[in-house]
């Protein structure tokens, strides 16, 4: 049995702690460059109090959000989550955001994503995991491809910001593809 489910090589996943995590989330959301890549909803600084309330909401079985800690420094650097879980279809989505800029582009995100996939396939017994990413977010797309995600479709001009329309790419990975990618 794999008891290191939540420990990777560079990061570990932990359940969110409203007291401490809300402060970081409130700080990260002020970086709208980061926020706008992350979500299609209008960015808005909802503030620490609101984040605290959201984190304290009772978890439901359709979404599982984790805080991502850098192992060496034991520092909260981002979050990752499996959400929109549809048990009867074995389908879900994954979302990831590396809040601390100095930990981006160094493999921490990819490692956290791998842990989330292991959780989705091994623990939640999902059949597939999907995600959506801006066509212009090349670094994220490379990380997803490294984890075994395949492009499944494009919604043309779905993101509209700064008076520019951008495509949104949807990617997915099946359990079989994930098993193969990880048995090598």
């Amino acid at each position, binding site marked *: 049995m794999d008891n290191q489910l939540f420990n990777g090589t560079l990061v570990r996943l932990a359940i969110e702690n409203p007291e401490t995590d809300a402060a970081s989330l409130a700080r990260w959301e002020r970086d709208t460059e980061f926020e706008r890549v992350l979500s299609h909803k209008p960015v808005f*600084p909802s503030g620490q*109090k609101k984040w605290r309330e959201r984190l304290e909401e009772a978890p439901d079985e359709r979404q599982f959000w984790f805080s991502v800690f850098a192992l060496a420094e034991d520092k909260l650097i981002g979050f990752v989550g499996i959400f929109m879980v549809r048990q009867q279809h074995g389908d879900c989505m994954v979302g990831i955001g590396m809040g601390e800029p100095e930990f981006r582009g160094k493999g921490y995100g990819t490692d956290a994503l791998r842990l989330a996939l292991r959780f989705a396939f091994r623990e939640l017994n999902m059949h597939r995991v999907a995600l959506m990413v801006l066509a212009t977010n090349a670094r994220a797309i490379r990380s997803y491809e490294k984890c075994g995600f395949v492009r499944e479709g494009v919604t043309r001009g779905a993101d509209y*910001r700064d008076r520019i329309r951008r495509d949104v790419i949807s990617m997915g990975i099946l359990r079989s593809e994930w098993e193969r990618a990880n048995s090598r």
Partner: protein
Amino acid sequence: MILQLFEGEKIRFAAFDADKDAEALSKWTHDPEYMRLLSPDPARPLAPFHIKKRFEEMEKEAGRDFYYFVIRAREDDRALGFTHLRWIEWNHGNAHFDMGIGSASDRGKGYGSEALQMLFRYAFEELNLYRLTGHTMEYNTGAQKFLLKHGFQLEVRRREALQREGRYWDGLTYGILADEWANANR
């Protein structure tokens, strides 16, 4: 392209935090000049309790469609004022905005101008709105100059719409289209 929407040079936009900001807003409402420049409603001093209550009511009434920012000074993070977008009609791309700089000593330093430019960018480039509407009063010549300087046009004059100091004053409505702002900033 501007990537940071909430960080200006001299100011930044922050969420309203009842514990931190109710005190400052309450102090401003004790200045009749501030209250009378801000709204046609009867000016009255508000305690922090009332500030929080009003904010909750505004939030409940508009649900998600209420974007309220506290304007904070970057130098010492003190609250300078507020600005918000309200009554948003997504199907028409319409919104009303309001803005206030709390203490007289903070006015005339460019905080309002920078806040308005940031609000324009947020309204037209993040929320993709079509136009913005602002209101002021006949005796508030400062606000009128401010609005005209930033590209607003006078659209409606409601004759004798408010009464103060024993006489009637007109209510003024100003509007600006997204393209007009974009062209002005080309």
